[in-house]
């Protein structure tokens, strides 16, 4: 005889998380990604001291290896992690037809979407937490004691949000096209387009305002100045969405430090460097956080809307 049961929102949500982890974690590419990431970070940690040793350079401890790790982890690396984590999230269900039995279970589409998105965040958290622990242990073993380890959680949050900007774009394209291939290739097209456009803009105009609001590496800021015809010495780093983790750590550490953005202009047949804008690291990081969250909100909202409207027309 039929039994009366009731699925609460939480049981449904946890079931979707569990389903998603069974779905995501067994993917060979996720395992492959872990191995790749592990290999790259190992090389990054071990190669410089090995080369120094080979070249007879005396080894000097670097107490910022872990801190700088959050600055180095960006660009194509971040994008590839995003694609591998999210390219099947929704489109994979449509492609295999498993969306049909899933959508007929007593869990709302909103909960399914939320569960799948949160599972992507948690998968990234797992990957990055693993990497951070590895880099920290490796850094301490190879380079000695490390600075600012207390800021790692902040860096991790920023790194996950930064990756999810690309991840949410992949989810959006996957939900619209219902094809993992279109999601991966389409988002790669966007990534390469943004990267090339950013590079061209940076070469022609310098660190112009538009780069503050573009996804990816964004504008490069410097704690040094922008003298005519040259860039003055100082710490320079990207301030785009990809570097949110590092920016948040910098905010906590050097929030009041001024960051200068240098522009280029042509005068008398020569390129001249000038100070296009400047702001405190705190403000730049806050803007970076806002831009990141705005991209996330827009991409995820559009994905959610497309998923809500999806009709299972074709025979499953």
């Amino acid at each position, binding site marked *: 005889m039929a039994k009366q049961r009731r699925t609460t929102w939480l049981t449904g949500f946890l079931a979707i998380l569990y389903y998603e982890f069974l779905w995501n974690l067994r993917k060979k590419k996720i395992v492959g990604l872990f191995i790749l990431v592990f290999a790259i970070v190992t090389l990054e940690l071990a190669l410089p001291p090995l080369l120094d040793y080979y070249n007879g350079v005396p080894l000097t401890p670097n107490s910022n290896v872990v801190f700088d790790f959050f600055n180095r982890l960006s660009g194509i690396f971040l994008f590839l992690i995003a694609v591998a984590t999210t390219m099947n999230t929704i489109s994979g269900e449509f492609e295999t037809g498993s969306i049909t039995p899933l*959508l*007929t279970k007593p869990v709302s589409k909103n909960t399914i979407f939320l569960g799948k998105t949160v599972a992507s965040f948690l998968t990234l958290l797992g990957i990055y937490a693993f990497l951070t622990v590895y880099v920290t242990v490796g850094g301490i073993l190879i380079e000695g004691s490390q600075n600012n380890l207390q800021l790692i959680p902040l860096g991790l949050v920023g790194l996950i949000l930064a990756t999810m900007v690309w991840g949410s774009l992949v989810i959006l394209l996957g939900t619209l096209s219902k094809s993992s291939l279109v999601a991966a290739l389409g988002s790669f097209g966007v990534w390469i387009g943004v990267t090339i456009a950013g590079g061209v803009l940076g070469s022609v105009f310098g660190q112009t305002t538009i780069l503050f609001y573009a996804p990816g590496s964004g504008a490069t800021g410097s704690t040094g100045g922008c003298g005519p015809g040259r860039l003055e010495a100082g710490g320079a780093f990207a301030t785009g969405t990809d570097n949110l983790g590092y920016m948040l750590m910098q905010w906590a550490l050097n929030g009041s430090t001024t960051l200068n953005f240098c522009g280029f202009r042509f005068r008398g047949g020569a390129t001249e460097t000038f100070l296009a804008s400047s702001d405190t690291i705190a403000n730049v990081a806050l803007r970076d956080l806002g831009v990141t969250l705005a991209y996330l909100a827009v991409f995820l909202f559009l994905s959610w809307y497309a998923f809500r409207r999806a*009709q299972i027309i074709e025979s*499953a």
Partner: protein
Amino acid sequence: MAVNRLNLTVDAKQIHGFLGPNGAGKTTTIKMLVGLLTPDSGSLKILGMDAAGDKPKIRQRIGYMPELPKFPKHLTGEELLDVYGRMYGMSKEERKQKAAELLKMVGLEGRGRDKIGKYSKGMQQRIGIAQALLSDPELVILDEPSIGLDPVGMVEVRDMVKGIVRGGQTVFFSSHLLTEVQQICDHVTIINNGLTLFTGTLEDIATVAMPSRRLVLEVQKGSDSILQALKALPFATVEAKDNVYTLHLSTKDDVRADISRAVSNAGGVILKMQEEGGGLEDAFMSLVGKEA
């Protein structure tokens, strides 16, 4: 427009067959019932509740097996039932017990730990039935449950469906196999081009199928007097070809004795008398043909 003004009532604790030619709108109707498709207009009630759109509360009380179901291939049969059981809010103990019971019932005992990707089409069909019954739903909707099954599997599915109803549940299933429907259904609904052509019991369908109920009569030697005698019968129209007469009957009664008498009185000798039509297939063909 796949479905238009479709009116369908399924009574509780019965097996209701849903028939129609390819493209009639069966799967579209079922997908609307389970929330996979949203109707452009009109109302849709299931278990007394408005069913249009995303309604988890209704799906809590329904078990659904899609036509040619597809499940995540990397999951094992047991894992699939476990994860779906979580979605129904079943306890761990309940999930384990129910999975073992259902795997046995659908003939997948001992294969529960195999990945679904390694299942044959028939086995995927069986796990599809198992997941539809997982939560002991009040209403079980099966879309072409026999597709992909061998003859033995088809018989087993029929037995399973009968078993579900014996357990107090209601089964609504679509099929293109008229014999299957005839063997297990209490009620049938026939649709075509999204319109209901018939809904009622299998006995009722005889009335609908009346125009196609016919009796083929072979006599030793055909004659004009036999033809006139048959034409005089008030319940039949007659077609003659040599010594074979086809009578289209307009009554449900057994009129073989009247026919026999009429032929004898006209000097004829009956060699063979065979009734054709009146079954589900004829009703189906008659309704669909008429509608087309």
